[in-house]
Each structure stands twice: as C-alpha cells, then as structure tokens.
C-alpha cells in the first residue's frame, strides 16, 4: 500500500508538472504595456510556487516511503525546526509578495500622460458601451432613468439639454490608438459587471453607483476580445465586445467620422 501511494503521488506530480510545461492552454499573447510585467511576475510565481509544489510532493512521497519500523522515531517536535521553516517560509512568501506590489502600483495608481484617450465604459445587461467625449473633451451629462432608450440610439441616457453631450460618441466596440494611455471611467447601469480583456491583462469590475478610474496602454494593433467576468444574469456568458487597437491616424479618422455622424 505504501508503494502504491508513493507511485500515485509521483504520477500526480508528473501529470501536474506536464500540464504546466506543455501548456495546452495558456495566456493569450500580451498586447499592453503591463502585460510583459505581468507575465514576468507570473513566471516568478510559477517557478517559486511550482518548485515548492514539486519539493512538497517529493518530501511527502519520501516520508510515506519509509520501511515499516519496529518502533516509530520518538519525537515530539523541535523548536529549532519550527523556527527555521517558519522564517524560511516568511522570507519566501513576503519577498514574493513585495515583488508584486510595484506591478500593482503601475496597474492601479492613477497615471497621466499627454495624448491619453478618455473613454467611459458602461456595463449593462448584457452589453458593453464605450463613450468618447468628442472634440470638446467633456462628457455630457447622462441620466439613464430619464433618457436611456437603447433602441433609439441613446442607451446611456445622454441628456439632450447638455451641449457637452452633443459631440459624444457612443459605440459597442472599443477603438483605441496604439501606444496611447487609455484612461477609462467604468460604470454600470444595472448590476455589477466586470470588464475583462485578457490580452491586455486587464480586469476591473464595473459597479453601479461608482465611477471607477482605470487604465491600460495598448502596444500592439489588432482585435482583442472583451468578456464579462462578474456574474450579471442569464446573458453573462455572451456579454462580449472587442477592443480594436489601430494606428494613430486610423483612430483620428475613425473618431472624426463618428463625431460627424453624431452631430448630424
């Protein structure tokens, strides 16, 4: 029984290690400034924690492999050992913890940059809306309860009496220029949703009643999927959108055309 248990633990170990080395499914290629930092940090995690996983199972298989003895080793513990492994684990875990905090700062703490793109993101059952402030750089007032009519082209409830809202552009796909900081203000119209863009290594809940500021900087042109990551009701699984990262010129062209459409 001892041998069978040992062999099984080793098989489990080999299977798990194989899974993480073969990587049949893995991160999508990163497309934002934070993605390479994130991937680097994840690799550290994988090596440190993966190493402890392998070591832990080898030791477990070893202690289970001892031949039957006439009498067990009489030991009630050892404070030297307790202190040693406690300090070792504190050192490893807190080194790892602190090494991740710089990344968190760069992801979460507010940043500013010349040429940043302002976008307001709104989650609603089961659709994402993206709003650009237009040439005036100011978002118009909204009141979803009073004015929102999704089928009449005003899903966010832009207040018609506010001139700042006349040039606002509302879309169902996020279009951003490559290399620019995308400054987002995230909102929700009904329940909690979560804007999840795996290629950008980005996720942020959108919470009704809150306007959450968050940002990322796309570094590669292309089309990337957005999924909803917070259970929001029966259509949660299909609350999909895309981010189209385009060149600066293309973005300017697109925005101009949109503004023209809106103001007509």
């Amino acid at each position, binding site marked *: 029984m001892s041998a069978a248990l040992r062999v099984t633990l080793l098989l489990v170990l080999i299977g*798990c290690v194989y899974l993480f080395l073969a990587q049949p499914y893995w991160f999508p290629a990163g497309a934002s400034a934070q993605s390479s930092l994130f991937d680097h*940090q994840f690799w550290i995690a994988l090596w440190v924690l993966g190493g402890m*996983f392998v070591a832990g199972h080898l030791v477990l298989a070893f202690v289970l492999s001892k031949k*039957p003895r006439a009498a067990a080793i009489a*030991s009630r513990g050892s404070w030297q050992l307790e202190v040693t492994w406690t300090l070792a684990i504190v050192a490893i875990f807190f080194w790892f*913890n602190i090494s991740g905090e710089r990344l*968190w700062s760069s992801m979460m703490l507010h940043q500013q940059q010349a040429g940043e793109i302002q976008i307001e993101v709104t989650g609603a059952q089961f659709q994402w809306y993206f709003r650009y402030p237009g040439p005036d750089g100011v978002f118009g007032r909204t009141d979803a309860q009073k004015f929102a009519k999704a089928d009449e082209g005003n899903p966010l409830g832009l207040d018609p009496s506010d001139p700042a809202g006349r040039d606002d552009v509302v879309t169902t796909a996020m279009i951003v220029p490559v290399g620019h900081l995308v400054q987002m203000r995230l909102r929700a119209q009904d329940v909690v949703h979560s804007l999840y863009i795996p290629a950008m290594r980005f996720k942020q*809940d959108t919470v009704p009643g809150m306007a959450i500021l968050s940002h990322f900087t796309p570094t590669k042109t292309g089309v990337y999927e957005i999924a909803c990551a917070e259970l929001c009701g029966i259509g949660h699984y299909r609350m999909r959108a895309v981010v189209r990262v385009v060149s600066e010129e293309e973005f300017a062209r697109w925005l101009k055309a949109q503004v023209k459409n809106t103001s007509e």
Partner: protein
Amino acid sequence: MQMPSPNSILHEQAGFLRRHVFNTDHKVIGRQYFFLSLAAVLVGAWLSLLMRIHLVWPKAAIPFLGEIKPENYLAQLTMHGTLMVFFVLSTVPQAGFGTFFLPLQLGASKMAFPRLTAAGFWTALVSFLVLIAAFFVPGGAAGAGWTQYPPLSALASAGPGEGLGTDLWLVSIGLFCLASLMSAVGFVATTVRYRAPGMTWMRMPLTCWAWFVTSILILLAFSILLVALAMLMMDRHAGTSFFVPGGLLVSGKAVEHSGGSALLWQHLFWFFGHPEVYIAILPAMGVTSHLLSVFARKPVFGYKAMVGATLAIGALGFMVWGHHMFASGMNPYAGFAFSSLTTAIAVPSAIKTFNWVATLYGGRICYATPLLFSAGFVSLFITGGLTGPLLAQPALDVYLHDTYFVVAHFHLIMAMASLFAIFSATYFWFPKMFGRMMNERLGRLHFWITLLGAYATFMPMHLLGIAGHPRRYSDLTGVQYVSAMAPLQRFITLAAIVTIAGQVIFLVNLFWSMRRGPGADANPWQCSTLEWTLPSPAPAEGFGGRQPLVHHGPYEYGLLGAVEKDFVMQDAPATWSDNGPSE
C-alpha cells in the same frame, strides 16, 4: 461483553419521537448532522454533474428536466455552491463529527446546552428544506451565485431566479446562521467548562482545538452574515437601500432605490465569507493532525506549534476578506494591506503542513483507509494552498479573479481537502458512531478513484483560468476564445463523471457496513483519546456516572518501544508512562 446499562435500556424503549426528535443526546444529533450533510452532498454533486454535462453537451436533454437553459444553469451553480459550502463543508466536519466527539474527547457525557444543540440541528434541517423548496417556485432557485452580489440579488427584475427563489435563499441561509450560532455556543461552553479533570488545554486533542477555534469563528462570522442577510431582505421588501445605489435602469425600467452601496454587501459578505473558508478547513486540519499521529504511531510533531497555528489562522482569518475584492473597485491602497495580511496567513498554514510531514517522518505507518485519505489531504492542501500566495498578489489576482483558476484553487484547498478529511474521519470514527467497521478494500478503491479524480478534474481548470476562461458561464459559445477551450472542458467533464460515479463505492460501503460490517472493538485503531475508552458504538449515557481522570497528553504513541501496546490512554494511571514528558 459489557452489560447494557439501565440508561441505554431506557433509551432503547423510548419512543421514536423521544429518540429522534426531542432527543438531546449529542451522539444522535451528530449522526443526524452527518446524514443531513450526506443528503446535501448528494444533491450538490448531482447539480455539479448537470452543470458539467450542460457545459460540454449543451443540447443534451436530461431525464425529467429537459434541456438546461441559462437560468437553470445559474440556479444550479448557486445551489451547488450554497449546499456544499453551508450544508456540507460547514456542517459535517464541525456540527457532525464535532457534536458527536467533542464531549467524548474531553471526557464529558453531554454537551453544554443540550437543548440548544438539538434546536440547532432542527433549525438546520428546516433551513435545508427551505433551500431545496426554491427549486420548485416560479422563476426557480436563486441565480446570483452563492455570493449573492447585489444589485443582481436585490432586484427581482434582474433575472428569473431573483424573485421568490432568492427570498427563500435568504430565509434558508438566515436560518442556517441561527442554527450555526446555536451549535457553536454549545461547543464553546463545552470546551471551556466540561473538560474532564486533568484535561488541561494542552492535553486537548488537536481536533478539539480545531472545533473550539472554529466555534468562535462561527459566532463572529455568522452573526455578521445574519445581519447582512436581513439588510438585503429589507432592500428587497422593506424599501431600504443598503446595497442599491440610485439611478439604476434594469430591463428598461427605473429602479426606485437610492443611496446604497453595492460594495458594502461585498465587504459584509466576505467579512463572513473568508472566516467561513477557515470554518470549513480548520476542523479538517484538526482531523488530519489527529489521524496522522494515530496512524504513524508517533506524537504529533510540534503540538504547541499546531495549536499556535490554529489560533493564528483563526485571528488572521478575520483580516483578509479584502483579497476577494481586488478587482471590485475597492481603493488600491487597501489592496496592499489585504495582500500582505493574506500572505501572512499562508505562514501558519505552511507551519501546519511542515508539521504534518514531520509527524509522518519515521513513523511506523499503518496504511489503512483513514491514513490514505489523510495523506491525500496533505497532498491536496499543498497543491491547492500554493496557488494561494499567487492569488494573494493583487496584480496577479485581478487577471485570474473570477476565472476557472480560482475555481480550481478553492475546489482543491477548500472542497477537496475538506472532503478528504471528512472521508478519513468517516472511515476512522465509523466504528464509534455505528458500532461496526467499514470495508477496507472498498475504502481503498474509493480513495484511489477520488484522489486521481480530484486531480484530473481540478488541475486542468488552472489552465482554463490562465487562458482567461471566466467562471459562471452557462455556455461556451458566447465568447470566441472561450469556445476554443471546449476540448479541455470535455476532459474535465469526463473526469468529474468518473469521480462522482466513484462515490457510489463509498455509499455502498457506508450503508452496507452500517448493517453488515463486522462488529467493532472498543478501540480498533489503538487510539489514546477518551472516546475510545467507551464501547463501540458509544453508549447513550456516555461515560455514565464515571468521570475520566486525565493524566496524559493526547498523542502518546510509539514512546514505549513496545510493538504490542505502543500507546498510553489519556486516562491511564499516571505511573504508566515514566519515560514520557506527559506530566
């Protein structure tokens, strides 16, 4: 052969109502909790099977249910989580085994507040029935997940299960909170007041330490949940706005609430919810520490360190709830604090793991089924635990949050590890609970299938999460990159089917052994703790008029150099152990 005592004859002659309903015998109540959890785990496992089948064969028609629609799927996942977390993981390790064995291991013949303990069980049963009733109401059971985030859970217009189904959910879990509080009060009082003479704190088995600390966690955590549930209920029906902000538009209709905060619920819920994780795992850790010592025939390595780690986990458990909310919109500076505190709580968990391995080291290990499941627990605890420090880093967590990576993490560390401890406790204490032995051969077969099945089911889920697969998706076709992961989902479903089917072996073994298993001796595993000084099954009167006198620590194994009787009962005369520092 022991003569039945007058008390137990009286017990046998009592009517059904007296024996099973108005009964205050903690051993009967413990068994009742055991069967309540068994019923809950069967329903919960059935629901997970339905979900797994629906994910990979979405058009499959289930007998009597037909095709599973998104609202059915969400109801199933909510009820699966609720049943498993509350009625299985928080019930059987604590209220089941704890109610039965805490007094016996302390040398007491009854629980403090026996009527309260009994009332706790009946409240839990009503709570279970109310929860199950939600399947049969218009709109079906609640569909906002076991975490019930408002506004989704606060507004009946937000989804099909958010009407009566959610009301029943709230009532049911409110009752469950009351039941847990009633039970926990008895645990704390019993531990503090009913210990036999000589049963000092440092002579308590680690199981008792775990039950004691868990009861304190229950008292603090479930009272918060009860308040939060009442607030949510009032938001739904009494016109308050604790959790619902103003200006909402749901299904094209304006919502008449204003001034609430959706994040407030998340803080209250997780202030309960994270200690809840430890409510589920601490008794499992206690059982594992206990059994590794028994089956390695060695004292627990670092008993005091184990007690200290249990207390540290209990205390730190109340300071880490924010790690469930890194992506919630909470202030990023709070992320730093919760991240460090979460890393801190990994330390006592690691200390425990080191001590388990050191307890096994050099032991004269008896590879019986309870030991196998305990070794499985350690393996799963290492595997599931090591993704903890990773998820404790907010920068890494936000990407993995609400993906299958987290599903894999908590199923391994909380669900599977606890389940393995529940199985080992069942195989171990079955003789004391039912007077018979379980079948070893079936037990081992059950272990191999469950261990390999648990890994095959939950390990690949990490990869789904890494590839960005969000959880709680009723369908894989809504997002393109998610639908590309269907082949791995199919593999997981097959593994889940095999694993769940393997549990039939356990059920057969359990019920067959209850009637036909070979009769058990008083102390079949050669254990030193006080419950094994009683005949099997433990008689109704417990220790009767006799009060055990405790002279020794709980883990005096393998110290005498003898093979035949290598342990000292806790109540053996003091002169028995001259070479052990047990005095």
